[in-house]
């Protein structure tokens, strides 16, 4: 009997069972791949950094005569267990061109190194160590090859000083230090003899050479203190900070995990509905089984066996599907990393077994109702006749709505629990998509600009600007340089003022703690033009503003005094304000205009900011952007929004994840709608037949069924849209916090949140429900006579 009931169930509810199986497959697939990816990425960062032998602390020195300064200090420092130094030439986008002389796209400062001199381990696309590069060839780290549509075998032209070489691209290398999305520098690895040719140029040797030191230590704070005496430090960072640079890769993996959890919740909601529904439909059979003496355990077992079969089949398919799916999700991550996944398959198996066990536990709890029913209750189809709840407070006599509309609304109002499956699952999926939409919209908006600087009409990111600024000698020189640029632009009919925010590396001491910290000072922008979260803008030579991160590093608050060694003099500075920034992951000090900065300590001057004085329209600014691009032969002229996107750098990945989520939401919406609608049709078979018998057309019945789903979907989408605003702040703020911005003004696009996405969910639901409800056409009026 067991087998025949089971066979009957599987056959009769084919569509429902297939959809349920799909949910189990999806849930297992997402849990297994999501958990695996998180484990791989979290452990993978350490695994990769260890494999690359990056050490505990990294510093970069660059600029005039910056070589040879680090070694003597590191030798003396007791906290340094060992260190490795490699020399490098620092350049820019202008140094690398296509073979025909046209521009290439590189990001940030570019580095040129000999493979023979590298101390960091590099890996090819197959994760094999790269130890040799032939003369005349070059291997490139980062996204340079992809962004410029190059392939192995293509040639590029590198010109440093007066030396120009055409080199064949031998392939891509994975760079643990500079290859992350946050660092994003392009490193070119050369054969020693080619490198020597470049170094034969004296100007390169004197001005563009620098060093990278990888330090092993047990005391990172002490190293920070020790290296604060090294001149020309352009960058220094701990291993933890470098790990944080892979935060976006981890975020993508975490999003997949959260998505998996959402899908499990949806799967369980659907499962609960489905099991409950199956049992409700079979009250009579259950009653008969009970009446003839079958024990509750046996009856429950019947249903559990079904879900065991389904979860086993779904689990096995989901497990196998999770492997390529996980790889696909990690594709963007593994492009830049060497990931260790020795326990990978085991995690997948454990996740699968866990999910299957959860499904079985859940089905066991859902079948609990079998125990409560007496045989006669069950035979009476669960109707005990003792239901006195007032129904139908929405009355057809009090509305002019058409019967189909009335019945749809009344069904939801009379039995809201029946629609909870639809509302909850649609709500969860839509909320998740909308949170990402809000995040991406924020990343693509000028809202973040204050976390990078001040808002201007245009930003010219010239990676060579740090060198240019250094060469101006002093602040007056910088002003002259800015005046020259603004005059050039103004002469072309675009009256403007040009400013620049310069970052210096200085040794800062507080409470006997000394660190080398980036300090920002602007030329052309008043310190009071920046936003501060607390306190007042630094005004005098001995006033500074700090970020919460620096406050923690130095153990100093507003009103405290810290000492900054400006090279020319040491100044005791009072902290007057807090501010937030995503520059340097939040590790930044803002100096007043009066601070005695020196150009030899410049580390970064990433962008010139252009403010037009004739208040042009947005369209005109766009037009001027193109003209300035042509004027300076530089494609990196950006509006505020574009500049934010460029700085955050993960917008394309987040957008891809957003669309992936939307696709998954659409799939969930389709599957849930099919499953629930087919269940409803099965439940309402007799009512549909009666309606048809008394003269209701199929079209009216389809409209009734479709509208119910439309209303439920719309309610879920609107609730999700409303909830997405606080939920985005709650869940996404910590992510920005990791990047340095603790208080983000999220950009909520009402059109997307309240119209486009709810409309997508609504439209998909309506279409699916309409197509599924076409099945009601097969119910004949004559079936009204065969009602059980």
């Amino acid at each position: 009997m067991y087998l025949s009931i089971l066979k009957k169930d599987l056959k009769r509810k084919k569509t429902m069972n297939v959809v349920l199986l799909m949910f189990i497959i999806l849930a297992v697939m997402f849990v297994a791949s999501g958990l695996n990816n998180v484990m791989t990425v979290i452990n993978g960062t350490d695994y990769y950094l260890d494999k690359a032998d990056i050490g505990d602390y990294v510093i970069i020195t660059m600029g005039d005569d910056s070589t040879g300064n680090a070694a003597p200090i590191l030798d003396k420092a007791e906290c340094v267990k060992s260190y490795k130094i490699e020399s490098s030439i620092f350049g820019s986008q202008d140094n690398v061109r296509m073979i025909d002389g046209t521009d290439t796209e590189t990001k940030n400062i570019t580095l040129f190194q000999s493979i023979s001199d590298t101390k960091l381990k590099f890996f090819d696309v197959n994760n094999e160590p790269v130890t040799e590069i032939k003369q005349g060839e070059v291997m490139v780290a980062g996204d340079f090859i992809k962004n410029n549509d190059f392939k192995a075998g293509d040639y590029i032209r590198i010109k440093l000083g007066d030396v120009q070489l055409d080199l064949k691209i031998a392939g891509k290398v994975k760079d643990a230090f500079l290859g992350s999305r946050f660092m994003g520098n392009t490193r070119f690895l050369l054969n020693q003899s080619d490198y020597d040719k470049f170094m034969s140029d004296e100007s390169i040797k004197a001005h563009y050479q620098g060093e990278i030191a990888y330090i092993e230590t047990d005391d990172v704070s002490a190293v920070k203190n020790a290296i604060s005496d090294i001149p020309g430090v352009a960058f220094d960072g701990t291993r933890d900070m470098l790990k944080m640079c892979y935060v976006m890769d981890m975020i993508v993996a975490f999003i997949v995990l959260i998505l998996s959890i959402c899908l499990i919740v949806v799967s369980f909601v659907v499962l609960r509905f489905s099991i409950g529904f199956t049992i409700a439909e079979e009250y009579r059979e259950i009653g008969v089984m009970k009446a003839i003496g079958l024990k509750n355990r046996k009856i429950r077992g019947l249903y559990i066996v079904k879900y065991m079969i389904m979860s086993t089949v779904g689990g096995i398919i989901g497990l196998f599907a999770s492997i390529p799916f996980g790889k696909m999700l990690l594709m963007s991550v593994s492009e830049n990393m060497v990931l260790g996944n020795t326990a990978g398959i085991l995690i997948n198996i454990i996740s699968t077994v866990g999910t299957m066990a959860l499904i079985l536990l859940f089905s066991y709890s859902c079948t609990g109702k079998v125990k409560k029913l007496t045989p006669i209750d069950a035979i009476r189809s669960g109707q005990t006749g003792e239901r006195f709840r007032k129904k139908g407070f929405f009355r057809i006599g009090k509305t002019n709505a058409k019967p189909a509309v009335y019945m749809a609304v009344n069904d939801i109002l009379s039995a809201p629990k029946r629609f909870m499956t639809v509302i909850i699952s649609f709500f969860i999926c839509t909320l998740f998509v909308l949170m990402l939409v809000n995040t991406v919209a924020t990343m693509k908006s000028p809202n973040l600009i204050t976390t990078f600087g001040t808002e201007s009409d245009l930003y010219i990111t010239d990676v060579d600007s740090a060198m240019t600024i250094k060469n101006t000698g002093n602040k007056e020189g910088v002003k002259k340089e800015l005046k020259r640029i603004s005059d050039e632009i103004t002469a072309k009919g675009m009256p403007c003022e040009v400013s620049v925010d310069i970052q210096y590396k200085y040794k800062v001491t507080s409470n006997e703690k000394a660190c080398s910290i980036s300090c920002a000072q602007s030329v052309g922008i008043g310190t009071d033009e920046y936003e501060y979260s607390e306190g007042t803008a630094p005004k005098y030579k001995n006033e500074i503003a700090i970020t919460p991160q620096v406050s923690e590093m130095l153990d100093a608050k507003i009103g405290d005094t810290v000492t900054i060694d400006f090279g020319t003099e040491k100044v005791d500075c009072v902290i007057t304000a807090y501010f937030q920034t995503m520059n340097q992951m939040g590790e930044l000090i803002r100096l007043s205009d009066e601070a005695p900065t020196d150009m030899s300590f410049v580390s970064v001057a990433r962008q010139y900011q252009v403010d037009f004085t004739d208040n042009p329209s947005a369209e005109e600014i766009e037009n001027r952007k193109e003209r300035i691009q042509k004027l300076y032969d530089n494609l990196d002229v950006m509006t505020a929004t574009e500049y934010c996107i460029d700085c955050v750098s993960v917008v394309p990945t987040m957008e891809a994840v957003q669309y992936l989520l939307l696709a998954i939401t659409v799939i969930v919406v389709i599957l849930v709608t099919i499953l629930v609608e087919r269940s409803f049709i099965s439940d309402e078979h007799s009512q549909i037949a009666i309606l048809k018998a008394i003269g209701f057309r199929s079209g009216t019945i389809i409209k009734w069924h479709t509208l119910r789903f439309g209303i439920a979907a719309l309610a879920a989408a609107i609730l999700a849209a409303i909830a997405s605003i606080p939920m985005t702040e709650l869940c996404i703020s910590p992510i920005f916090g990791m990047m340095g911005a603790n208080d983000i003004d999220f950009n909520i696009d009402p059109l997307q949140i309240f119209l486009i996405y709810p409309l997508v969910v609504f439209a998909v639901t309506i279409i699916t429900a309409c197509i599924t409800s076409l099945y009601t056409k097969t119910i004949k009026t004559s079936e009204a006579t065969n009602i059980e």
Partner: protein
Amino acid sequence: MSTVLTAKDLCKTYIVNKRQNNVLKNVNFSIDEGEMVAIMGPSGSGKSTLLYAVSGMDSITAGEVDFSGRNIAKMDEKKLAELRLDEMGFIFQQMYMLKNLTVLDNIILPSCQSKKIKETRKETVQRGEALMRKLNIIDIADNDITEVSGGQLQRACICRSMINNPKIIFADEPTGALNRSSSDEVMEELSKLNNDGTTIMLVTHDVKVAAKCTRVLYIVDGNIKGEYNISKCENASQIRERERVLNNWLMEMGW
């Protein structure tokens, strides 16, 4: 009196497992306005199939069904639905109604759907309540359908069948699921409706029910084997006599 319904050479064939089953074989009959016709016969004789074939709820294999001058065999599904909604009423053995609607809302639902009825929703409600009052179930107007007895629910189904003022009511064993007292109540209401001029065609196994009709058609193996005409019922003593006579006739027919 004009003829409401005429069946000419009506045939209905089912094919089950490649085997042809002729359920109705050249059935011919007609029903005049104001008649109350009972279809009787042994189980599987084709009573219900005949009812659904002539009411447009089921397709026919051959023949003609003329309803008020229109051949419903040639009508498409949309037209048939319209016809059933506006000009026919249905009562089934199972008192099936929409679960989420109150009794009154179930009753007036067909009227709200009908394009023929040109009245405000308030007037529809009033008509529904008047019908319920007439059938003595006004007290359950706002009740959930699970809160009322079978007899009350079947009377509600009669109200629903009446709401669009149909030309004919088709009833398939309307008392089949009821106890004797509820059955009597329901038949009393149907008789009253018939006395008011409503044409009724019903299928029954119950001689007591058939005795309240004006004509009985006896069907065996898809053919009308006999027809028994009775005058309109006047009082209770007449009923008992009619039941006896009808019973004798049915015995003759092989009942």
